[in-house]
């Protein structure tokens, strides 16, 4: 009798602990992905061109010399005002400061070319030159972006990767991959970079069409020297749109309705 009571107590305690642990999971609300905000940058419309056009006319009136008449005037301010981008080059913190100072108003006129922003290589560091340590210098030059890249890597590594044996069978997974492989056109101009991966989170409908998509790490698009990331992300989104409806199993919708696709161009680009 005592033994039964003892066992009953142990099992009851165990049940209480298990229930206490599982309750938070039961109470947790399902993942609700924020909706994607599509921002269309329309640079010429009737309204937006008015101030620029007026300005351009005013400028043109002032220019009387024949040589100057030949120049090409862009009616869009951004190209001339923007800081010169150096795709593929990972600027150093020092570079950034110096370049900011040197941003000048540029025009699309070869006759009025002003001093361009000074080019800088990865050598531009305070340390004395030692070719033996160039590789190390190049690595250091990536400090600007490394933190975010590391963070991204950590996110990927630490995020719980669902076993496909639970959600999709191997053949289902292969079918989905094969479908997307065929739709994804890699941008060929991608630089040789450490991190050429774009992670896209999808909410799928039961028929495999995409109801919501979100580019993770989208903050990376605005980092200096990461212009290619936006291009890569756009190519991945294009692939999803071309491919949909995705080849998903006819059953088990709850298991695969939230899908994360990791588009990794590293293997393809680096060979």
């Amino acid at each position, binding site marked *: 009798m005592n033994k039964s009571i003892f066992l009953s107590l142990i099992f009851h305690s165990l049940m209480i602990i298990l229930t206490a642990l599982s309750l938070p999971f039961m109470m947790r609300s399902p993942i609700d992905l924020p909706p994607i905000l599509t921002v269309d940058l329309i640079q010429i419309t009737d309204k937006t061109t008015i101030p620029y056009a007026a300005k351009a006319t005013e400028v043109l009136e002032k220019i009387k010399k024949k040589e100057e008449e030949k120049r090409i005037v862009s009616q869009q301010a951004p190209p001339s005002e923007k800081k010169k981008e150096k795709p593929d080059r990972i600027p150093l913190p020092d570079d950034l400061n110096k370049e900011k100072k040197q941003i000048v108003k540029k025009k699309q006129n070869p006759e009025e070319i002003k001093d361009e922003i000074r080019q800088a290589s990865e050598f531009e560091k305070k340390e004395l030159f030692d070719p033996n340590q160039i590789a190390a210098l190049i690595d250091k030059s990536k400090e600007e972006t490394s933190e975010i890249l590391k963070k991204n890597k950590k996110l990927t590594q630490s995020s719980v990767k669902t076993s496909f044996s639970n959600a999709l069978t191997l053949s289902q997974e292969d079918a989905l991959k094969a479908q997307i492989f065929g739709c*994804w056109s890699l941008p060929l101009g991608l630089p040789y970079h450490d991190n050429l991966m774009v992670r896209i989170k999808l909410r799928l409908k039961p028929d495999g069409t995409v109801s919501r998509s979100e580019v993770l790490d989208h903050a990376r698009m605005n980092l200096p020297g990461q212009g290619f990331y936006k291009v890569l992300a756009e190519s991945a989104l294009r692939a999803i749109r071309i491919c949909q409806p995705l080849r998903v199993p006819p059953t088990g919708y709850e298991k695969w309705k939230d899908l994360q696709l990791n588009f990794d161009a590293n293997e393809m680009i680096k060979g």
Partner: protein
Amino acid sequence: MKKLILIFIFNLFIFNNTSFALVEVDITRGNLNPLPIAVSPLYVEPGSKEIKKDGKIIQNIGEEISKIIEINFRRSGLFNPLKKESFVQNPDIAHIKPRFEDWRLIKAQALVTGKVAITEDKLRIEFRLWDVVAAKEMNALAFSTTPDNWRRVAHIISDKIYQRLTGEKGYFDTRIIYVSETGKKTQRYKKLAIMDQDGANVKYLTLGNELVLTPRFSPKNQLVTYLSYFRNLPRVYLLDIETGVQEVVGDFPGMTFAPRFSPDGKKIIMSFAKDGNSEIYTMDLNSRVVEKITDHTSIDTSPSYSPDGKYICFNSDRSGLQQIYVMRSDGSNVKRITFGKGLYGTPVWSPRGDLIAFTRVHKGKFYIGVMRPDGSGERLLTENFYQEAPSWSPNGRVLIFYRETKTDSKGEGFSTKLWSIDLTGYNERLIETETDGSDPSWSSLLSK
């Protein structure tokens, strides 16, 4: 007891169920085909004036502009412009509102539309770049200029689209200066010539009665430095392409080689043989003060600055064979960076600073290759009987060089042609020129 076990299993099931939250799939493969892009002929507004080219009226300026954009894209190797015959939608409607279904039907992923208006002496060209799959506009710009600048505008539009679709600056609105060659191999006439990067608008800058060598563009502006022989004496000249003004920088003794600008355009760096030994020197273009950079008993030639101006790469035979070295711009800390078999020469630092292009000679073959500034990651891009003098495009993605062909048994068939190759090593293109060409140098972007 049975009940307890059931509850226990139920709890386990709850735990297990949470792992279905997010499924991850790694996509590691895709197409490496050039991006299919449709360049619709630009719509010409009714009442627009006609433009003449070589005395002939251009029938459809909108189509001509779209053709130039197409050629630029095809040559880049990154895009596949689709045939115009397959287009369903007319340019006039397409520019206002593309029917994306029609463009998706022909497998286009990007679409370029535009409009041209010519009034009096003013040309206005606008274009829009569309993402066909997402059915949205990616970029739109308008340019105003004089009508005779229509080709340049086509190149500028190509650059803008290239930048939007690849994330890096383009290189289409640029020029190439080279040595135009005519005549037999034993009696070549060499003239300085300049053309657009696509081979159009060739202009000859010298008459051909003096030997000209190694023209080099300034990375800052439209200045060119080159070497010419006057009464058998080497002279370094400075030529302003915009104004046509030319001046002698100086007469130098002995063999003088390859003057090249510093990144700020204030100095030129070259090698010449003083006291019988070739060393590297710089000359300040304002003060004309010459400074000796290297001091070694060996032959040091072909210097090229890093884009930040702090380092110089050059070739030297101080180790016995010609190899590439890197040093600080004051001549200190000289370090050899190539150790491969054969000879290495003509090093040129990339405008991005990440690579050095070079010519390698090994077992009778000439290679154009690239390597990192520390000498690692050497990649040979192209191999041929004779080729050398690589020069970088301003975005550091394409190299231009020249290649010679063998003469036959009769001593004929010799020619020198300009070629380009991109960093992948797969996109090798002949650049059509009116005459033979050698020693090309790529300008910076004309429109910044």
